[in-house]
């Protein structure tokens, strides 16, 4: 049987469905019976959802885009 520590180590594999059928069943079984791990998994999944919204944006000003476009077109013209 999987331990709680195992669950915390395999959470990403479970979440990404990167797990064999048997392993997956064992994982589900533990989580079904252990409310601490149920809470952990719930929080872990929320953490991933949140991270997806956390995407930092690298600000690109219009002028820096213009400059870059010019530079690239120059490279393109060189043989």
């Amino acid at each position, binding site marked *: 049987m999987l*331990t*709680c*520590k*195992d669950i*915390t*180590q*395999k*959470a*990403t*594999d479970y979440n*990404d469905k*990167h797990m064999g059928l048997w392993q997956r069943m064992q994982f589900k079984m533990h989580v079904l019976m252990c409310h*601490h*791990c149920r*809470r*952990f998994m719930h*929080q*872990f999944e*929320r*953490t*991933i*959802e*949140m*991270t*997806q*919204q*956390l*995407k*930092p*944006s*690298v600000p*690109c000003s219009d002028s820096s*885009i213009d400059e*870059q*476009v010019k*530079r*690239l*077109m120059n*490279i*393109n*013209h060189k043989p």
Partner: protein
Amino acid sequence: MEQELIEQLLAGEEAAFRQIVTDYQGIMLQLARNIVGDAIADEVVQEAWVSVIKSLKKFEGRSSLKTWILTIVSNCAKTRLRKEARSVAWGDASDIEASAVSPDRFNPKGFWSNTPGHWQSASPEQLLASEQLRENLDKSLQQLPGAQRTILQLRDFEGLPMDDICKILQISESNSRVLLHRARTKLWQTIDELENS
């Protein structure tokens, strides 16, 4: 679609250049920063652009344009690391345990002793509404080792498939999974600490 864009680039159409710069400059810079650090990331991106433009003809569409461009950025960045002898085991996960949940939260049999606490905030939106939390998460992100931050960026921010990420970074899938898991767990821990403080 992408093939069309490539042809326009090869024909030297300004609109096409504007489009790839708008689409990829930000993510290229982010990736370069994660691999080589802020100081020389700009240079690496410029190098990568040169290489992208010069090898456009060779783009065969076997991967997406995004994956292809990011692979070039990653190669340029890693070459740079090697030159500066900083590449020591970049992305090597063999020396770290799969889980970042502190071992002292478990009893010797591997069951929780210090159990996960209740989180006040119910949804990701509620969590993100807390300024303190955002600050702590930013800090945690900055403190992550470069390889972990890179994989988190590509997987969770950009939503790229694991296969593409392994291609871009040239590391094995098992390594990248360990690194991703470690990064995600670190963020979980950051929230957990704050929600239970």
